[in-house]
């Protein structure tokens, strides 16, 4: 018998054979299917969670970058973006400074007037001017001390001191006049602030939003107007102008010196020629 025939018969019999699996085999298979499906779903969920996390991370990063750029702009605009409170604070500070200056000047005036009284014979030092910081006040105090020490014995020195006092009083009077002539800068600032606030309110009424740039431009205009008014209405000269004047004076003296040198040289030559001819 050939092996193929034997194998064919073997195959037939094996193909016909069936083996019944155990009773709980289906339950085991069902539980395996459930487990794998749960794992599949979990892996799918993890995949989607990962994608969502990446997306959220990207969003956060972009928002952070954007916010950084916006804060960069804010840092620039913080200088200009002033609320009403800040403006009020600044105004109060300016007003306080101005009030202090006025007090100092008033004290100076008082000192000057007291010295004026002293010049007519009564010499009494007052402790009021000790708080004054200006040069004039220091000079006055020195003068008063000198007056105390020499108490009517040395008339010549007294006369000199009186002259100096008179000069100082003149200076004080000129300053007083200047202060009287110059308008109160607090009022100017208040007016300008009021103007700016009114303009912003108008803009708010007209437009839904008032941008920082608009507020900045209004504030800049107000500042310009304030400075212009100050310059126009005050008799004070700016430091740069003073320096320019001094430089001009120096230049003039130099020119005069050169001219004088040339003049003297020409005269010498002229005299020398005249003497030789004689």
């Amino acid at each position, binding site marked *: *018998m*050939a*092996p193929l*025939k*034997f*194998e064919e*018969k*073997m*195959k037939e*019999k*094996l*193909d*016909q*054979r*069936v*083996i*019944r*699996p*155990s009773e709980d*085999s*289906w339950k*085991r*298979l*069902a539980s*395996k*299917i459930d487990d*794998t*499906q749960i794992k599949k779903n979990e892996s799918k969920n993890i995949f989607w969670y990962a994608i969502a996390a990446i997306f959220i991370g990207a969003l956060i990063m972009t928002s952070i970058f954007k916010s950084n750029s916006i804060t960069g702009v804010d840092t620039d605009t913080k200088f200009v973006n002033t609320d009403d409170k800040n403006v009020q604070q600044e105004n109060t500070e300016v007003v306080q400074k101005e009030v202090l200056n006025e007090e100092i000047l008033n004290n100076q005036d008082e000192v000057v007037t007291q010295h004026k009284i002293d010049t007519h014979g009564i010499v009494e030092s007052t402790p009021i001017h000790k708080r004054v910081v200006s040069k004039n006040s220091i000079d006055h105090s020195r003068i008063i001390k000198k007056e105390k020490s020499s108490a009517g014995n040395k008339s010549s020195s007294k006369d000199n001191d009186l002259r100096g006092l008179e000069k100082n009083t003149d200076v004080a009077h000129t300053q007083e006049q200047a202060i009287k002539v110059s308008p109160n800068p607090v009022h100017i600032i208040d007016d300008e602030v009021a103007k700016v606030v009114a303009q912003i309110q108008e803009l708010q009424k007209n437009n839904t939003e008032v941008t920082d740039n608009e507020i900045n431009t209004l504030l800049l205009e107000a500042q310009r107007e304030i400075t212009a008014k100050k310059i126009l209405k005050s008799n004070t000269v700016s430091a740069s102008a003073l320096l320019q004047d001094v430089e001009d004076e120096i230049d003039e003296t130099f020119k005069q010196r050169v001219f004088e040198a040339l003049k003297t040289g020409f005269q010498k030559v002229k005299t020398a020629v005249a003497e030789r001819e004689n």
Partner: protein
Amino acid sequence: MKVIQFYRNEALLIKKATKQHRDAQHQLYEKYAPKMLSVCRRYISDIHFAEEVMLNGFLKVFLNLKNFKSEGSFEGWVRKIMVNESISFLRKEKQILFTEEVKSYTEESWNNVNTELEVEQIQELIDSLPEGYRMVFVLYAVEGYKHNEIAKMFGISESTSKSQLFKARKMLQQKLNQQNRINNGAIEI
């Protein structure tokens, strides 16, 4: 009419099982599990392991049911999965040894061999073969695989597959002759 209805039913079951309908899966399992356990049992001598392998095979069947093309038979597709699962199990559990090539093939006489064996006896004979012989013999003689396919499956040469088959046949012949002698002797006694 009944055949057509059966195929329609099977197609419907497969469709439902693809959508993870548990009843349809159960019906398909009930239908093919006994045959497939028999297939796994040819390769794996332990019935419990064979059943476990069959269950893993069915799991793969139900998970990859969408990949089944209705061109071929469903049974053939499932059987292929079972064979591959059995081979991979044996590869994992035991190292399959394939002996060296045998160049001279000498045919022995099968005339005295009693082929009228019960299925259980046949299975016992197959189980008595070494792993390598048994695998190649079952794949070639029972499943109908060719030597080049078997060689590809195990990563061996075709001649090795042929030599394994030859040795398996020789061993089976010897065992059958021995059995016959015992049976004859028993009869003679």
